[in-house]
């Protein structure tokens, strides 16, 4: 394919809330430009992982090149950049956006703007994007395009008078979207004669090609056989292959200024690449790397243990494989008195945690116990050193701690105003500090600063349940602040259960301790003896429940004809016991480790 003039290229992203129709619109654009034959089309082509399709989220950035002959008679090369849509992947999103000049903002014409959309729109604005509002699902009876347009203008401050009204599902006015892309979004800028400067947008592992790197060429050209240097990691590679995605890989000789495409270069692991890195020519490098680079930084940690200790080696192989394709996920071996050998894993956020756990269970057929998620604390020790604490079980002796700092986030919550009262109460309970409160029609938008450790567990679930699913939530990490944090231990039958220890703010300790003890009382089956369940800080018991002794189990009759059936029942019971964890004399079912932390208030 010959070089496309810069003026005939459009690189754009699609910004949308989950379910507002981003993937469907992408499918329609691919179809309308004849990029794939009908036979090749599957729904939501760009979400290639099963989890992505099922949950309607995008985890990996993907691109597809579309050729569109516009009404002005010119053939344009459009690069659609499908970006992850979740706050956990905010940095990845920002890099994808930085590789484009414009965005389509897709809003459901009956639902309106959601908090998550907002965060991404602001990022697009930060990246100087031109933004075209698209109202999707205008064919539905509940659609209120005029109200939603007003909302876009009011909340985001975008001119929505020229919003394109479509139905991605039926294909209504897809042409209008394509015309808006070529007429309203700007072409890329860049210097074709300057030394190569390309942004590493994302990378993934392909079983046949090895590591595939998604790039946006900013200046210069990228050609096959070129020696390139990654400016942040310092590694050099010889480029084996360049090309672009349709979303099939099409190999070409080179990628020119302004183009989005992929390269392979015998890179062994995805972990060897850093999202946001600058790729330049080894011999004739560019002077300055691209701004905005940030190394991947896990913010939430939890322990993952095999249910059956014999599966540890399988788990090790599985996390290793996943890590090949996901450099933002980290792991190190951990051993727990209660759970045996496993891994302490770091994630970008809670969704990332859930996705990894689900992929381990589904793609690798593993049964896992996940311990309570915890955030990364910074401990200033009395000897002047500073450590990061990933696991409450590793907390140093309190006498050696000068100060504990915890991560804080700024959260934006949008909600119909009838739920506002309960949501404010929830935020206050979770040590939140209100920053801002605005009304847009009957919707309230509230901004809170919250400690992340109050959010990691069930904040989102609680928010969804008190707002009957209507509130939307988004956050970004702001800073670390000192906090009066204490380690709370749970003792079952007077034995501490390390996997249930948490760091908690002193003001929350009583409530959390009581809640956990009450939960465990229901989660741990009755034993032959009475079991005290206690929460303790230091040596002080702050909450206590008692599980009564089992008074009577089944005493059915049992004769010669019952033996086989009884033995089979016993075998099942033994199987169930395998899924329990022994703490001293008490057996705790594995689901208790997560369920104990859910608060029902």
């Amino acid at each position: 394919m010959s070089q496309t003039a810069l003026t005939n290229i459009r690189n754009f992203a699609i910004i949308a809330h989950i379910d507002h129709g981003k993937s469907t619109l992408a499918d329609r654009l691919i179809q309308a430009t004849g990029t794939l034959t009908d036979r090749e089309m599957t729904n939501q082509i760009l979400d290639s992982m099963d989890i992505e399709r099922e949950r309607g989220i995008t985890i990996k950035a993907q691109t597809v090149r579309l050729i569109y002959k516009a009404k002005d008679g010119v053939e344009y090369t459009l690069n659609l950049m499908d970006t992850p849509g979740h706050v956990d992947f905010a940095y990845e999103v920002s890099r994808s956006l930085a590789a484009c000049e414009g965005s389509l903002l897709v809003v459901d014409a009956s639902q309106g703007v959601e908090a998550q959309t907002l965060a991404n729109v602001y990022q697009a604005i930060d990246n100087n994007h031109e933004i075209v509002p698209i109202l999707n699902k205008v064919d539905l009876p509940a659609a209120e395009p005029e109200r939603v347009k007003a909302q876009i203008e009011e909340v985001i401050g975008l001119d929505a008078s020229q919003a394109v009204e479509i139905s991605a599902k039926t294909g209504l006015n897809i042409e209008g979207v394509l015309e808006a892309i070529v007429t309203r979004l700007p072409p890329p800028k860049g210097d074709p004669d300057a030394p190569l400067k390309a942004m590493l947008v994302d990378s993934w592992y392909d079983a046949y090609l090895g590591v595939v790197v998604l790039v946006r060429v900013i200046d210069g050209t990228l050609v096959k056989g070129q020696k390139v240097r990654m400016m942040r990691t310092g590694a050099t590679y010889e480029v084996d292959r360049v090309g672009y995605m349709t979303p099939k890989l099409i190999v070409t000789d080179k990628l020119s200024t302004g183009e989005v495409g992929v390269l392979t270069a015998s890179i062994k692991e995805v972990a060897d690449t850093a999202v946001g890195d600058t790729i330049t020519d080894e011999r004739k490098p560019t002077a300055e790397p691209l701004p905005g680079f940030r190394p991947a930084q896990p913010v939430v940690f939890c322990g993952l243990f095999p249910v059956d200790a014999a599966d540890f080696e399988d788990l090790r192989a599985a996390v290793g494989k996943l890590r090949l394709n996901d450099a933002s996920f980290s792991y190190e071996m951990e051993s727990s008195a209660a759970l045996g050998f496993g891994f302490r894993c770091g994630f970008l956020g809670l969704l990332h945690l859930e996705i990894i756990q689900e992929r381990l269970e589904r793609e690798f057929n593993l049964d896992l116990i996940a311990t309570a998620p915890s955030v990364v604390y910074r401990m200033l020790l009395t000897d002047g050193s500073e450590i990061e604490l990933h696991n409450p079980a590793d907390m140093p002796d309190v006498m050696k701690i000068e100060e504990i700092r915890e991560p804080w986030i700024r959260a934006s919550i949008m909600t119909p105003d009838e739920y506002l009262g309960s949501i404010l109460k929830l935020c206050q309970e979770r040590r939140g500090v209100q920053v801002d409160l605005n009304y847009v029609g009957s919707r309230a938008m509230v901004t809170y600063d919250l400690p992340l450790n109050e959010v990691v567990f069930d904040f989102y679930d609680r928010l969804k349940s008190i707002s009957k699913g209507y509130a939307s939530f988004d956050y970004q990490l702001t800073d670390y602040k000192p906090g009066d944090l204490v380690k709370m231990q749970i003792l079952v039958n007077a034995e501490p259960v390390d996997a249930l220890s948490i760091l908690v703010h002193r003001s929350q300790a009583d409530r959390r301790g009581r809640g956990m003890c009450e939960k465990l009382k229901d989660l741990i089956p009755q034993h032959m003896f009475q079991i005290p369940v206690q929460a303790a800080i230091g040596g002080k018991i702050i909450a206590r429940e008692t599980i009564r002794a089992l008074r009577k189990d089944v005493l059915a009759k049992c004769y010669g004809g019952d033996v086989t059936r009884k033995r089979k029942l016993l075998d099942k019971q033994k199987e169930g016991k395998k899924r329990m964890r022994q703490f001293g004399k008490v057996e705790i079912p594995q689901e208790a480790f997560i369920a104990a932390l859910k608060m029902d208030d």
Partner: protein
Amino acid sequence: MTDARPQDLLAGVVPDPVGTPAEGFGVYLHWPFCTAKCPYCDFNSHVRHQAVDQGRFAAALVSEMETMGRLTPGRTVTSIFLGGGTPSLMDPATVQAVLDAVARIWTVAGDAEVTLEANPSSVEAARFRGYRAAGVNRVSLGVQAMNDADLRLLGRLHDTAQAREAIEIARATFPRLSFDLIYARPGQTVEAWTAELEAAIRLAADHLSLYQLTIEPGTMFEALHKAGRIAVPDPDLAADLFVATQAITAAAGLPAYEISNHAAPGAESRHNLIYWRYGEYVGIGAGAHGRIALPGGRSRLATSTERMPEAWATLVEARGHGVTAVEAVDGVSAGDEMLLMGLRLREGIDPIRFEALSGRPFDPARIDDLLSHGMIEFLPDGRLRASSDGWFVLDAIVADLAA
């Protein structure tokens, strides 16, 4: 393989010429027919609206016994049990034919116990003399309750007066008599049960089987229970009822020798002791189960037969038995079975025999743990049993000690 006939599961079985085990050798004979199905019952019982061809079923029982006899050579029968269904629907002549066959196929011990289960109705009581003449020396009556309202709830066809009369006749006819009662019935209080049990004890049986009502899968009671139409006592009340039962029977000289069975000393059911002591037994008839020793001493052959009576008879007529499932129970599983059965007994189990059978010792940590909670105890002769507290939670104890 073009042979479309079902495989003969007993074809390759090699008999174990060990002789009669110390725990005894029992013959269980199942009569699978009932006049009506009781709503709590999950036994293999069937209601037929035409007369059952007793000659055909007697011949099939005899034929199946002959096959089982070849797998258990040299055994001396210590007990025969005619269970059901309702074996008191058998003609005395049918019982006679079957018992004669037992004596022809095996040696029957001179003091063998021969039990027949019977309903306490006047029709059936009329046949008692005939059963006695055929060789039955113990009868077990399904009395179930001592008040008419609960008898109706339990779907029984007799009333209290008929039951009392049947008990009188049985006591006069047979050397030994047992009857069953079901307690922990919907709405039953400790006081009501105490009165009923004391009345039952005055009827002077030497053996009582006292079962707590359990809601079994596939029964009408299960459907009613799920629909919320009947409620059974909660575990606390059930435990109180159990405690009261132990105290009343012990005071009356009928202490529990097994979780649900009470007897005057010496009057224990020898047949059921074979099961609980994990002895050897053959199961004859539709839906019957057996445990036959296999060569080598540790493993057992578990047999079970076709449950549908007519299909079972057809199979027996074709190949001499109706066995449709066999399983070689290895030593480890046999050890589990011995625990399941043996710990139900007040006499407990012999740990040395357990180790020999299962090929493994008990986990000392588990034993210590259970001892420290007072759930099990060792007797002076070294036997291990569940303590009186442990009996309540026997399933949990067995799960702790099992492989």
